[in-house]
């Protein structure tokens, strides 16, 4: 069959597919075609795929081939696109997707927790037994500012600024951008064979441990511990979860198993993303608690009680939420 008669025979179908794709590219409200007409897409698309293959194998002119290729490419993109995520997906994600994904990858979480916690405890213990050690972790200016923050004379712990109602809001913004950024970097470091994740977990563990040990040593425990115990539940757990997500990437690269490194990374990254996004939401909660609750001047006993409750909430949520659901994986 010659090119010209080929075009005459099938040109109408190409035109129909083009109109269909143009219509689908519009938003739902602007579409002119009925649902029945839109349902023609798979059929028409496969017809044109066939024509494209014919045109190529018969060496028809390049312009015709590229015209058909363009139609096929657009059709393919339309037909095989992934479903978007709706708001209800977010609810499902919080209710079950995230905690279930975390439990499925529990061993990474415990490894990350160990990497975060053990150096912290070790350095914290050192700093508690010897008040000079802190200066090998932080420089003297940092130590001074940290001490002034938790000085019992200071009327609002955890702050350097004057106490005002607006300070809470400012600090909320600081915590959001700072902590979630750290969480994301901890995750991203996993793609460097885990070196970045490892470094950030150890570094943050050491600094937090050193500060805690030192402040307890110099007698600021009644300002420091009530302040950090509440939001620490969400914050520290979330950082460990981001670390776990980073370790998942690292594991895929170091020991890909049956897959290629690239294939393992792709599979594992989708799962790890669930953990990171969940941790980001936890960090938002933590920032909220830290800005508006931890800094308040409520009695110490109440703060400790609330902190215990918050820890319980975190443990129960991560340990049991969504365990009744059959659809464990939301496949985000």
């Amino acid at each position, binding site marked *: *069959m*010659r*090119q*010209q*008669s080929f075009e005459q025979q099938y040109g109408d179908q190409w035109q129909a597919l083009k109109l269909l794709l143009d219509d689908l590219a519009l938003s739902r409200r602007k579409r002119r075609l009925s649902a029945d007409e839109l349902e023609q897409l798979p059929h028409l698309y496969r017809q044109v*795929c066939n024509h*494209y*293959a014919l045109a190529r194998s018969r*060496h*028809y*002119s*390049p*312009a*015709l081939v*590229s*015209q058909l*290729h*363009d139609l*096929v*490419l657009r059709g*393919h*993109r339309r037909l*095989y*696109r*992934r479903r*978007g*995520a709706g708001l209800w997906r977010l609810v499902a994600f919080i209710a079950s997707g995230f905690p279930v994904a975390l439990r499925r990858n529990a061993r990474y979480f415990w490894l990350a927790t160990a990497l975060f916690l053990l150096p912290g405890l070790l350095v914290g213990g050192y700093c508690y037994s010897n008040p000079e050690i802190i200066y090998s972790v932080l420089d003297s200016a940092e130590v001074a500012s940290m001490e002034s923050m938790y000085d019992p004379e200071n009327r609002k712990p955890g702050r350097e600024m004057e106490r*005002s*109602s*607006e*300070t*809470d*809001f*400012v600090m*909320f*913004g*600081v915590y*959001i*951008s700072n902590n*979630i*950024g750290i969480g*994301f*970097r901890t*995750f*991203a*470091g*996993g*793609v*460097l064979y885990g070196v*970045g994740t490892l470094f950030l977990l150890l570094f943050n563990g050491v600094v937090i441990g050193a500060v805690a040990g030192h402040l307890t040593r110099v007698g600021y425990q009644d300002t420091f511990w009530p302040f950090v115990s509440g939001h620490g539940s969400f914050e520290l757990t979330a950082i460990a979860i981001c670390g776990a997500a980073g370790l998942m*990437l690292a594991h895929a690269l170091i020991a890909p198993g049956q897959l290629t490194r*690239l294939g393992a*990374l*792709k599979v594992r*990254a*989708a799962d790890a*993303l669930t953990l*990171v*996004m969940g941790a980001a939401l936890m960090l938002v909660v933590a920032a909220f608690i830290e800005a508006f609750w931890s800094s308040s001047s409520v009695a110490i006993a109440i703060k400790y009680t609330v902190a215990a409750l918050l820890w319980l909430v975190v443990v129960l949520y991560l340990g049991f939420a969504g365990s009744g659901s059959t659809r464990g994986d939301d496949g*985000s």
Partner: protein
Amino acid sequence: MLDTARQYETPEGIDLEMRIAGPVVRACAWAIDLVIRFGLYGVISILFAFFGGIGVAFILIGIFLVEWFYPVIFEVRTGATPGKKAMGLLVVHDNGTPVSLSSSLIRNLLRTADFFPFLYGFGLLAMLFNYEFKRLGDMAAGTLVVYDDRQVERMALPATEALRPPAGLTGDEQHTLLAFAERSTLLSDDRKAELAEILSDLTETQGQAGVEKLHAYANWLASGRGK
């Protein structure tokens, strides 16, 4: 064939062709985005500067959101950030479909690792070590950055009478004749004559007459009688 063209075989068994974008054009796109991002930082800062402490919180959160999610929002909505759009690029999955939210999140969260130690050092290294110019984020997300080939209006063959070409032309040679005829509007007359003279053995003419004759052959190939 261009060496940056990648084939993806669809479930229908046909090969889709995608042209992969290289580091230079992507760096340009990133630079444009950088300017836009800084513009956004400025707008956010000016907008909320009058709201005291709460305004500062909004500025901090706004800058954080732009820093991490600016590419995600645009990629999910239109497949490309404004910078990529300006350079004619598109982000797609390995199978050529539009990038989804989760893939876009992965590729953009991993920018930090790509950026390391400075100015996308690792990202560039990674790009140079694979055939698809993927940076680390693209590898984990399974995405490609390709040229967004917009179909230009198809050229009609020049209207001449059809003339049967000499026998024994291979498929590729016929293909070349057709391509030459279809591109005739894009070439100057001198250039066409120059190209046609390469085939003076076939046409047995020189200059403009040779061009006409090749066009006539192409017309016969496209519409000819018989077969």
